[in-house]
């Protein structure tokens, strides 16, 4: 029942409004695109019918989401006011008690027992660097797999990702090499899926 509580509710409201707006926008783009598709016969839509229907529902759902979010926020505020008024009648009930259910609904806390894991999270801009390494790495794979071959490209990609998550460098290199070789053997030799050979062709 604090300022923080209210601000997170406001944040959720803002989030829902953004989702609603984006949804309506997508729907608004899809409908004319669907309408521009050819008709089976005069007056009978074919390919465009489903996109138009989906677009219409997107607009509807997006608008409804925004509307209900606003209404729910208002109702919640009224409800809270009422609750506060009820509490005000009896001073002995501490406000903390009423806050408890909200806590219970918070995201499930970590199970502390038998944790065997290392934390891979980071602080500051490093997080976004890690994200960029992941996405950039996959793009790198797509661009270079045909040239460098699967084993090399995949090894580089995996090494980069593991290393970016603060593993020791030899762990990263080892993981990269082992993963790419194991997958190569599995797909190419056992499952008969052709992976790009690249410069390794002919070996």
């Amino acid at each position: 029942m604090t300022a923080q509580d209210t601000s997170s509710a406001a944040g959720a409201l803002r989030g829902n409004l953004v989702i609603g707006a984006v949804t309506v926008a997508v729907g608004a783009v899809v409908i004319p695109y669907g309408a521009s598709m050819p008709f089976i016969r005069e007056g009978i839509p074919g390919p465009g019918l489903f996109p138009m229907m989906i677009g219409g529902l997107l607009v509807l759902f997006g608008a409804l989401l925004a509307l209900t979010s606003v209404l729910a926020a208002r109702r919640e505020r009224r409800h809270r006011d009422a609750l506060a008024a009820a509490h005000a009648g009896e001073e002995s009930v501490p406000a903390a008690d009423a806050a408890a259910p909200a806590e219970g609904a918070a995201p499930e806390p970590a199970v502390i027992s038998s944790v065997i894991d290392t934390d891979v999270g980071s602080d500051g801009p490093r997080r976004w660097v890690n994200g960029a390494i992941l996405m950039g790495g996959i793009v790198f794979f797509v661009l270079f797999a045909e040239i460098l071959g699967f084993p090399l490209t995949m090894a580089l990609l995996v090494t980069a990702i593991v290393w970016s998550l603060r593993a020791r460098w030899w762990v990263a290199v080892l993981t990269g090499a082992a993963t790419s070789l194991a997958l190569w053997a599995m797909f190419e030799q056992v499952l008969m899926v052709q992976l790009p050979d690249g410069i390794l062709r002919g070996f």
Partner: protein
Amino acid sequence: MIENFQGALTLVADPTTILVVLLAGVFGLVIGSLPGMTATLAAALLVPFTFFLEPVPAIAAIITMSAMTIFAGDIPSALLRIPGTPSSAAYTEDAFALTRRGKGALGLGVSLVASVIGGLVGSVVLIFVSPVLGEFALRFTSYEYFWVAVLGLTAAVIVSRGSQLKGGIALMAGLLISTVGLDVTLGHPRFTFGEEQLYRGVDFIAAMIGLFGLSEVLRAVTARKGESMPIPRVDGAGAIRPTFRAVWRNRGRIATGSGIGGVVGALPGAGADIAAWIAYAVTRATSRIRPGGASTGAEGAEEARDAEDDRRVEAISGAASANNAGIASAYVPTLAFGIPGDTITAILIGVLLVKGITPGPDLFLYQTDTLYALYLLFIVANLLLLPLGFLLIRASGFVLRIPRSVLMGLIVAISICGAFAINNGYLEVGLMVAFGILGYLFEKGGIPLAPVVLGIVLGPIVERNFMQSVIKTNWDLTQFFTRPISAVLIVLVVLAIASAPLTGWLGRRSARAAELRAAGAGGPGAADGPDAPGPLP
């Protein structure tokens, strides 16, 4: 019938057959645990080998393999949050949540036992009900298929607890994605932006790997320190007892799920995927376990989470039994009329024909030994799944012992290979990346992901059957409502759509009132409390 079974038994007890069953079982488990490698692909890979086998071992290989693969698809879904098959996608969230709560072995164990029971029920359906059910399924035309698929879509409403509107948005996103590619009526390219590769549409496996797997990696690497969820140890050893206890508790769920799987699987073209989604929705909607949360304090929160876990286990038992039951009953139309029930049985028909066995009435009249051998194989395959599956679950727990950073690298590598293998091209890898980002954003906005997959899988079925129906009758829409089977399906659809928001609204309303009463009971201010909360629009 007894002598038929004896003849069949000698066919099945052959050492070659037993060896083939074992090898195909292990092969199926390995393939199924790799995301992106589907049962269909595994069956296609097996076909060349079956050329050199006798008919019974050849059929045995495909049947065993498919039963194993469908279960094994749950393993990456529970451990890595990457559904191995579209039917596992229905309960991926639940299985993964259980793993995070340290109950991964329980979740997988329940899924395994439910799969086995479902498979056995499906086999029984196949053996005893197939002539009747087959005849029933043959009366289905595009109208009925349309409604069955719509019934599947309503699962989205139930899957997206919390915000049905966001679930609706997610479903629409999935449906929109399913329209990419050449359209069914005129072959007109939609949303392809001149890219010929997109003519084939968005592959749902690539979408699944991206939405669930890659988005999870993306969230992990961009997490703040201390924010990334530690994964508790999964001990496979002691899981068997609680598994069977949980299975016993949910026996009704498994029975319903198996029943749904048995019926829906027998409809040609509907198959195990739709069966799993429908069973999931039914189980969720009719759950009697009260979601906790009314009680207060840390203990109450823990209780609430335990209740939620029980609900998850319940849902898994319903859906996992349904997809394996569906796999078995998909053979009903295959054997009775030679119509494939799904893609795997389509391949099996090819194998049968090559082996000189014509599916259809002849099989029931003249080749009863083979037919009964096939029945027996289903039972053997499902029983074999139990020990092999537990072995796999025990072994799979080690995935979680791998350091997190290494695990992330592994998931990315496996995801890329899986996406690449779908069509031996890079388009699917690119799609996977796009869906990874989409999944990441959706999670941030609290939009559920499962309905997106549902939309992608069922969208084409809904659209095709709708368009076929209206073309057939020149837009006589009354046909959708006047056919008797359609009418039954429509009632089910309406019930499914109405149930979730209604119970949700009543629940919220009563919870709020109770809270208010509790607060107000102690104080005189309660009497002039506020108006009852207005109904939701």
